[in-house]
């Protein structure tokens, strides 16, 4: 009997979903990022007005003053979807784990002087609360924002901020042999040490901010670009005995900042470029929140570096320069 070799016809009928193809300008293969992001949020025919905010639908473009013809324009250059995000973070974290093991095995934090321990406790550890407030802000933008392109990376960012708060907390536990005494002291400092009050007031003020894109601007250009940059940039200078170990343990934060900025820059740049009105609004918010962040961080900068706030002002200048590169009028 003769065997007829035949290929089963497996030519696809289409390369991707129709809504994705419309955005790609034709039926062509789409990335996992595109298929898992584009047009994912519902846009019309909602059933009920929220009992908790009947002025708006649960997804409503009017929850910010900036206007976009299409909220799927500000895309994520990292092309994160859940899987690629988690795998990226697990890799970053496992590098961090090795650093914790290295520092713990060599007792690099256990052997520092009491004075240095007190300084790290009062000037570094409270930043975990700033991460926690930042976590709340990113969760808020995720729930309140419009369009999956912007909102999905926000819940990733919220996870990142929580993760960083936990890394700082682990440093606190490593400082005192896991008793929690340093963390308790650090929290007292967060609540009452004058060096932190400006920062705490600023983050509490962001927590009541209802325009989600203003909140995004405040978090990204104010909190991230000024305060977090200041703190993590000052470690080696501010903590002579432990600075190097602390820089190792917070390596995640440096990796994260580079990663986060690529995305947050793209969002700010795209939304500001949409119209003169958007540009004016965002520039105003950026000006205001960078200024707030500088004033808030000056006493912290002085306490960390003994510089009368110079590093905070420099961080503010850098943040303004950064904003200008994104097309903002600053």
């Amino acid at each position, binding site marked *: 009997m003769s065997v007829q070799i035949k290929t089963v*016809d497996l030519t696809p009928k289409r390369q991707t979903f129709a809504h994705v193809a419309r955005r790609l300008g034709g039926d062509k293969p789409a990335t996992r990022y595109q298929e898992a992001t584009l*047009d994912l949020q519902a846009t019309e025919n909602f*059933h009920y*007005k929220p009992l908790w905010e009947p002025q708006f639908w649960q997804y409503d473009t009017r929850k910010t003053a900036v206007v976009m013809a299409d909220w799927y324009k500000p895309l994520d250059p990292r092309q994160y979807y859940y899987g690629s995000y988690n795998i990226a973070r*697990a890799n970053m974290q496992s590098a961090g*784990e090795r650093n914790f093991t290295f520092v*713990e095995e060599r007792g690099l934090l256990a052997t520092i002087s009491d004075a240095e321990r007190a300084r790290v406790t009062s000037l570094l550890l409270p930043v975990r609360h700033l991460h*926690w407030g930042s976590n709340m802000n990113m969760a808020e933008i995720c729930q309140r924002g419009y369009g999956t392109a912007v909102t999905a990376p926000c819940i990733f960012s919220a996870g990142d901020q929580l993760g960083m708060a936990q890394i700082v907390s682990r440093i606190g536990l490593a400082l005192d042999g*896991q008793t929690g005494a340093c963390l308790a002291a650090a929290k007292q400092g967060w609540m009452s040490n004058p060096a932190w009050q400006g920062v705490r007031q600023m983050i509490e003020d962001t927590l*009541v901010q209802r325009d989600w894109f203003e909140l995004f601007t405040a978090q990204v250009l104010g909190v991230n670009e000024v305060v977090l940059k200041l703190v993590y940039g000052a470690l080696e200078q501010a903590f002579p005995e432990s600075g190097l170990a602390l820089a190792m343990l917070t390596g995640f934060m440096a990796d994260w900042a580079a990663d986060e900025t690529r995305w947050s820059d793209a969002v700010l740049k795209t939304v500001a470029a949409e119209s003169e009105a958007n540009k004016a609004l965002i520039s105003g918010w950026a000006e205001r929140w960078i200024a707030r962040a500088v004033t808030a961080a000056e006493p912290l900068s002085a306490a960390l570096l003994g510089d009368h706030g110079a590093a905070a002002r420099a961080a503010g200048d850098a943040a303004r320069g950064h904003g200008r590169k994104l097309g903002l009028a600053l």
Partner: protein
Amino acid sequence: MTAKKLSLKQRYEFLTRDLDWEPSYQSADDIYPYDKFEGIKIKDWSGWEDPFRLTMDSYWKFQAEKERKLYAVIDAFAQNNGQTGVSDGRYINVLKVFLTGISPEEYQAHRGFAFTGRHLRGAGTRVACQMQSLDELRHVQTQIHTISHYNKYFDGMSEFPIQHDRVFYLSVPKSFFDDARTAGPFEFMVAVGFAFEYVLTNLLFVPFMSGAAYNGDMSTVTFGFSAQSDESRHMTLGIEVIKFLLEQHPDNLPIVQRWVDKWFWRGFRLLGIVAAMMDYMLPKKVMSWKEAWDIYFVEAGGALFQDLARYGLKMPKYADIATEAGEHISHQNWGLFYQLCHVAGFHAWMPDAEHLDWLSAKYPNTFDKYYRPRFEMWAKQEKEGKRFFFNGLPQLCSCCQLPMLYTEPGDPTKTCFRSSVFKGTRYHFCSDGCKDIFDGEPEKYVQSWLPVNQIFQGNCGGATVPEVLDWYKINVGVDNGDYVGSPDEALWNAWTAQRFSEAS
């Protein structure tokens, strides 16, 4: 200093709740403006028991590992053209219902848990909610990635987001989640965290996904079970919420009981779609809907409510009615699919003789008496070339938004009609359960975007069925109608024939 190892619980305490502080520059009520109006009284948020106690480092680690495994299966499935190896071409229709009806709700849950993950006042609760928000995003995205491969070969999946916003039967799941999303944060937690995740989701993800495995769909069972590993965390959160609310203040009990009653019923109606998927759409069957209901609601739900009785919480109202309806609901819903598939984005078909016998065996009290004759009549009509479709537009329930097709408790030959008049306008309901929900919050349900009524009001692309289908982005003659004669069937048959000729 000697480092001691902290217990999971202590470590978690330091790494989550301890991050929170009492604000002084802004008032807590301004920071959390939404968690008081529902009337829930919380004396002490620290009474919250954290389920699972995951920190972000373990979360990333575990979830990354799950994702690596899942995407390896998805890739292998696509490379091996696993779609040609499922039990039958009909099977693909469950994926169409899943992608259009369920995946968008995972997305809604994602945004809803971001809301509670920001706006509930307890720090431990917020962290648990945020992780669930992340998980729910995972579920919608992995479902899209799994089904993406099927979309390349089969019809009916290509326009899922817009269909979710427009197509008539998809307003059933959409209105369910819109209802939960627009409720206050505590009600959302009870609706999704408890009634949906704990009481009902098992029915969707365990026997149904096991069915996917049995039907050769290895990629779907992998996302399904992988999602379930998150669901177990979510169920724990759901039950924790209920216990917490009931422990905090006795005044919470009547509010929680009302939510449990409401969301049980809404969930039961929604999951009736899964009943039809299990009993009719899986070519090879693992268990019947009734058997699944007995295991996952009567037995597991029963144990749970027995446990919660110590707080005074009772079984959901109408649980007995739902259990009785377990004998009927899959047949009734398949009848709906069968006669309205010409206006739907998936295919339906007449069960064959072997399938009818399986149904008789699984439903000895009801199938031969009430439903077999219906299929016999339709089969006869098909044979005469008069395949039966419902020519009208159905009356919809103003609560669950399903067509008013369900029967009176105790009499499966009589359609159940209930109605209420609110501010001079009459509203219709398929059941006492749905009527009670409307009567409890009429100002909410008068807003329902009822798809049929919207067609009549002229808001759906036009007055004729072809215009409406065009607006639905249903490709007529391709996406809709009978499986027999569809392009899906032709493709499946071509593959089968090629395989057969290779084998001979």
